[in-house]
């Protein structure tokens, strides 16, 4: 049932992808070769393969997740391909790696609830990855942020994987400790507080978030981690006090950072007024706004926007990663870019629904944590590039260029797929058992 619906959902996705690649080709045929149309075929292949895998390995998984993320990834690679075809080839490779990991998780981690037994190990690995980045990280793009780790010839962004691991840790920890965290044993300035010793691991995550901010100069991932943390604590305990304290703490830390960290100060000042230094420090945000404004209602059309300077370089630095939404908003307009935002809303809707439907605490919290992560990350970067909030460098899930981002997001997605598959299989089994039991009574009641 779910898989048939998924197959139907894939049809418009495949059509949109095909139309998208064809229009990029039509608009830029002088610069790019027809062979590149192969990306359309690649996507068709991935859609078919993923669908087939799910039919066998997770037949009851949510039927909307894959079409939504498939379309997001297609829009992303289409835009990357339009900006720089050679980057699209790399992104396609990463997409295949991501789908590979996705498949591996679906097949080998069917019983994902086993993860609950290893949460401390996973959490420690997550934090270690961050520590390694802080110690040995490199600043790839000269932004002053050391986010990347070079291993051999491959560059990875460990923060992306830490996010997934720490989410799993929090799901496991919070689901065992939620009762304890909901009780009040003491008060701090009149605020009811749970036993101090259970707060330890949570304070650790809080500390890690701010350590990232202060030591890595990195705003986006640290805020994201903190947001996921607060959301999951609230989901587990149902007490508004926690996010409220969190907001106070983050305001305090944010204020401190504003006055002590040049990069934070700069980002806030540029958010308030990008025009004072629009040719230098405010250049990226100013150009992003110009691109978005240029899109209007229907956009300039794929391949027809002013994304590249006469020398072929992107006008907006980091166009294919953090600023890909600006490119989409210019070429697809309000209609297309709203569509993208709504796709993300649908994705988080499916995620939260999977959390609500799940019947055990670990699954609920894991699904909720992953959904919060997708939603917040989307909000931070899209809000940042259109000056709704201060800009924090972070990728747009499934859309932006970046191997670590794509692969780790597919890992998160695989977990959602597994959770939904488990819930729906059990329901299907219960329904089947009910059906098997029902005819007897029905037959008994029917006059013969």
């Amino acid at each position, binding site marked *: 049932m779910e898989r048939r619906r998924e197959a139907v959902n894939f049809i418009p996705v495949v059509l949109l992808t095909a139309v998208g690649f064809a229009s990029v080709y039509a608009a830029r045929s002088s610069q790019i070769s027809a062979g590149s149309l192969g990306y359309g075929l690649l996507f068709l292949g991935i859609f078919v393969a993923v669908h087939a895998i799910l039919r066998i390995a997770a037949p009851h998984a949510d039927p909307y997740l894959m079409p939504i993320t498939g379309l997001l990834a297609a829009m992303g690679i289409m835009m990357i391909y339009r900006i720089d075809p050679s980057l699209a080839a790399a992104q396609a490779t990463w997409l295949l790696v991501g789908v590979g990991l996705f498949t591996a998780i679906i097949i080998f981690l069917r019983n994902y609830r086993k993860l609950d037994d290893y949460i401390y190990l996973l959490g420690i690995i997550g934090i270690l990855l961050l520590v390694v980045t802080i110690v040995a990280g490199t600043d790839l793009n000269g932004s002053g942020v050391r986010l990347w780790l070079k291993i051999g010839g491959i560059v990875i962004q460990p923060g992306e994987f830490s996010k997934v691991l720490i989410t799993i840790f929090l799901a496991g920890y919070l689901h065992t400790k*939620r009762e304890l965290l909901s009780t009040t044993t003491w008060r701090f300035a009149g605020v009811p507080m749970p036993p101090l010793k259970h707060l330890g691991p949570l304070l650790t995550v809080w500390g890690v978030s701010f350590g990232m901010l202060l030591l890595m100069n990195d705003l986006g991932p640290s805020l994201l981690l903190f947001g996921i943390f607060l*959301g999951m604590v*609230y*989901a*587990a*305990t*149902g007490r508004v006090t926690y996010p409220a304290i969190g907001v106070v703490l983050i305001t305090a830390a944010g204020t401190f950072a504003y006055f002590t960290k040049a990069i934070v100060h700069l980002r806030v000042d540029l958010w308030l007024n990008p*025009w004072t230094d*629009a*040719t*230098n420090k405010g250049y990226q945000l*100013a150009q992003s*706004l*110009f*691109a*978005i*404004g*240029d*899109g*209007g*209602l229907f956009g300039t059309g794929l391949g027809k926007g*002013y994304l590249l*300077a*006469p020398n072929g370089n992107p*006008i907006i630095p980091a166009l294919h990663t953090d600023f890909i939404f600006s490119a989409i*908003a210019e070429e697809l*307009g*309000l209609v297309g*870019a*709203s569509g993208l*935002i*709504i796709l*993300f*809303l649908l994705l*988080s*809707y499916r995620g*939260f629904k999977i*959390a*609500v439907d799940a019947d055990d*605490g670990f699954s*609920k*919290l894991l699904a*909720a944590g992953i*959904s*919060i992560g997708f*939603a*917040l990350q*989307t*909000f931070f970067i*899209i*809000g940042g590039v*259109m*000056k*709704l909030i201060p800009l924090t460098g972070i990728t747009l899930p499934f859309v932006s260029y970046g191997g670590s981002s794509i692969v780790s997001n597919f890992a998160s997605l695989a977990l959602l797929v597994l959770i939904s598959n488990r819930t729906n299989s059990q329901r299907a089994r219960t329904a089947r058992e009910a059906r098997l039991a029902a005819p007897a009574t029905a037959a008994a009641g029917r006059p013969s």
Partner: protein
Amino acid sequence: MNRSIRRLFLVTTALFAALLAMLAYQQMINAGALAENPHNTRKVYEQMHIDRGLILASDNSELAKNRKVGGFYYRTYPQGDLAPQVIGYNDINYGQTGLEHSENDYLTGTADEVELTNFFDNLLGRPQTGANIKTTINPKVQRTALSGLQKIGKSGAVVVLDVHTGAVLAMVSNPTYDLNDLDADWVQLNKAQSAPLLNRATEGLYTPGSSFKLITTAAALETGGFTPDEKIDNGNGTLDVNGNVVHNWKDFPGDYSFSEAFSESINTVFAQIGLKLGQQKLEEYQQKFGLYQKPPIDLPPGEVDTSGRYVNGALAAPGSDMNQVQVAWMAIGQEDLQVTPLQMALIAQAIGNGGVMMKPYLVDQVLDRNSTVIKQTQPSEWMRSIRPETATTMTGMMVDVVNNGTGFGARSSRVQIAGKTGTAEVGGGKGPTAWFVGFAPADNPQVAVAVVVSNADESGHDSSPIAHDVLLSALGY
């Protein structure tokens, strides 16, 4: 847990609704402002394949023309340092300013009047050509004004207007720069303390000092019952307003006529007059002379500032709270008053034009490539500032300033110049701001001028000789 998870989804929905709202705002409501932003280069890029129109001076010499490189048209400026802030730049990296920005629709041929020609050009496969802009700038007068400021090596501005039409004959902002070196010098031009990119004539806000007494005088003559010969008791030569003492540039004890007080620029007399007139009258006449409104000149609105009283960096609406001390200071052109040289030139123009202030303009004609006039600017009134007889009275008083008073530096044996000086203290260890605002010939006004010099010589007479040279140049001497 389900309840809190559902609430988290509600929060997510709210965040995403904010994203959609902001997106709609940026793409539908703010899009126009973003497209017009001078830093936005996408329009410049798109229009680089258009054979952009020339910008010409009033003597038909070229101020801006094109150089074609590989299908793209690039701008060159044959008189690059003459009026860079007025002509503006059209640069792929830095956007557009000045006339290159405000006249872009004509220069690119996208304005309605030139659309038809382009339609046929497109049909015939010819490159799109823009219309030429003929400005009112007179290179000779412009050069005289610029070298006047360059000779004393000080920052400042000069605006020269045709008294009867409001045509801008010269608009100078010093320091200048060469438009052809924009790309090479960009960082330096931006960083420089002297701000050469700024059009001081329209964007520079200066304290008017005594030049503001033109407004106080007009108010006193029209509504205060004052006459030029009226004696005013100046006491011991200082004035105490609620414990604040107003001083003069030299001792003026005893009685002075209104006219003498004007030509010697006696602050204490004008402070008394100001107190007698009151805040409302003073502000009424500021508005009659166009303050608190952006002058309707054909430059990008973002490059034209509004004159008036500024409190904490924002224009204070007339009628805001002021105490007696502030009113007294306002009457002598201090008290947070900030005016642009263009505005002061307009005041002189209105007095020279029998009290009628004209709309200032820089574009005289728009011409197609066959030199056929597509659009001709018709001079038009901006506002009636004062009565003709007040203008005549004031002209007499302004002649006295030049012949017998503080404006001696502008005196000429060949033509009678009328004017008013101003020396505004700015503090901070800097020299005063020196003004000369006036017109000539006094008996048949043709040309009006405002000269301002920053960090001027302590005597405050830096401006008058420049005004003298500029007026004579404009009158063809």
